[in-house]
């Protein structure tokens, strides 16, 4: 297991290298023209462009720039470690803003994940155990509704109802927990709910499906035949096998969401990673784009590794060489 983990960590490094390389390629393939032109003002002279190029490090060849990026990532730069440089647009160091933005996104994801697990798993389990009952039909109907509803549409509708019409909530934007916990909560509750309802619906469906599959397995019949109590069968056998795939799903979702809450952030005007990424990519801001890309790639790889380890612990049939 130890060797397996080390090998996977090395893979994570390789993934980061590949992902940043792809980012570089796409960035320089973009036919929008010379990034330096964008940042040289309205009527740039050739001298000014050259100056901007040098200050942004764009005067070097693309492979050279990439090498320098990797080197600084590992050894650090004038803004500390890891070296992420400064934004082309704001000329500010990337790292402090990355930390600040990541806090917003992580707050959104963790709050959302707690909610969707708390809703999705119990609903899925109970629906499977009471299969065909009115409760099962109502929960699965509701789940289907939330799987099908576009997040941005739900977001706008909920803002329309709870903000514009009822006036219960103060509107969009992010307030930090430190400055005002109450305002923090009232600004986050709608984004959490909207994000969580979609995933809760997906998880409830997956858990129910898995549980029902497991119930028809031979070993459950064996367990019943050898006289195990129904409670023990459900808790020890069905639940364990039924929930295991959720862990893989959760790890994949958590990792992907680090760079994937962009729609929720846009609707609720949260200044998180996704929002930053969208603006940076559309404005050729390479250092910001790369910084977020690296963070997301690391998050996804690590969560995927955690998922696989948990999967091996929970499902004795799976073994890794």
């Amino acid at each position, binding site marked *: 297991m130890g060797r397996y983990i080390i090998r996977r960590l090395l*893979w994570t490094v390789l*993934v980061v290298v*590949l*992902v940043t390389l*792809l*980012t570089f390629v*796409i*960035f320089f*393939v*973009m*036919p*929008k023209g010379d990034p330096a032109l964008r940042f040289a003002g309205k009527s740039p002279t050739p001298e000014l462009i050259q100056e901007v190029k040098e200050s942004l490090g764009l005067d070097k060849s693309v492979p050279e720039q990439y090498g320098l990026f990797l080197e600084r990532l590992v050894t650090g730069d004038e803004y500390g470690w890891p070296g992420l440089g400064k934004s082309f647009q704001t000329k500010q160091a990337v790292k402090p803003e990355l930390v600040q933005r990541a806090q917003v996104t992580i707050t959104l994801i963790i709050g959302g994940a707690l909610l969707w697990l708390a809703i999705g798993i119990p609903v899925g389990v109970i629906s499977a155990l009471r299969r*065909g009952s009115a409760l099962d039909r109502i929960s699965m109907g509701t789940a*289907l*509704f939330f*799987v*099908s*509803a*576009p*997040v*941005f*549409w739900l977001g*706008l*509708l909920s*803002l*329309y109802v709870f903000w*514009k019409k009822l006036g219960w909530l103060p509107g969009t934007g992010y307030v930090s927990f430190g400055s005002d916990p109450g305002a923090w909560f009232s600004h986050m509750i709608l984004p959490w709910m909207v994000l969580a309802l979609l995933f809760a619906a997906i998880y409830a469906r997956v858990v129910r*499906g898995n549980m*029902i*599959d497991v119930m*028809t397995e031979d070993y459950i019949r064996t367990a019943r035949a050898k006289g195990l109590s129904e409670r023990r069968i459900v808790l020890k056998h069905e639940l364990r096998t039924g929930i295991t*795939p959720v862990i*893989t799903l959760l790890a*994949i979702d958590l*990792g*992907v969401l680090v*760079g*994937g809450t*962009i*729609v929720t952030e*846009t*609707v609720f005007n949260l200044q998180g990673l*996704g929002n930053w*990424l*969208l603006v940076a*990519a*559309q404005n050729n801001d390479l250092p910001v*784009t790369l910084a*977020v*890309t690296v963070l*997301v*790639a690391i998050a*996804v*790889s690590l969560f*995927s590794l955690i998922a696989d380890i948990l999967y091996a612990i929970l499902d004795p*049939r*799976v073994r890794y060489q």
Partner: protein
Amino acid sequence: MRFRRDRWAMASLVFIGLLVILAFAAPLIATISGHGPNELFRDMTDDFGLPKGPNGSFWFGADGSGRDVLVRIAYGARVSLIVGVVATGVAVLIGVTLGLIAGYRGGVIDTLISRTADIVLSLPLLLFAIGIVTACGSSREGCFGGTVQPGLTLVIIVIALFSWPYVAKIVRGAVLSLREREFVEASRSVGAGDLTIMFREILPNLVSVIIVYASLLVPQNILFEAYLSFLGLGVPDSTPSWGRMISDASDIFDVAWWLMLFPGIFLLLTVLAFNLLGDGLRDALDPKADR
């Protein structure tokens, strides 16, 4: 047949059928109403530039530029249906093939496929969508020597590119435990080759998994296109898309409710119908599912 008795699935099938007719009949609706999809009607916006709501001629009202919402919804159905079905088809084909090979063969091939899937999943999805859409969509020539044209094809390629790993991972995971089962052993003991075992023995056991996943993927991909369009990255503005229409509504949603409501309801019902259809197919095809 079990599927026929599933009222919800049949209702969904009818709805999807009507939607297909709506998509085909979009030009007809434009002709009958006399409102082109990109035609601007000055008298449908007021002095402040705000659109006017539903009336006898504009059943679903007008948007911020004074265009007929109903006609644009009809045209938008085309984009959603084409993207949902074609992108999913491509993704499932790639995902099942690679997942089957990875799970069954194991070893180096498995590592290669699984890591490729991991890398694709590690890519910040929308960043690369933004990157590729910008790179290929900003000029008429497209990219890769003109093989990838901006617009619908580009959106389909981007979506398929990012959704096959989900299928591949699920299929691989299922194959991992299936290949240890007795029936595979039995098949091998009577001399069946790898290809026969993979496609004749293991694949049929995966059909329900694949259908359930594909059924989740069609509506997901319809939503993906809507998300891209919502962020202004989907098809160009001259091609009406439901996501784009809702995005246009987001600035004035408190005064022009119809702009947000009607495209949203169509998007919701379409995705819902495909989800219900998938559930119905699963119940009908999965021998384990008794009702």
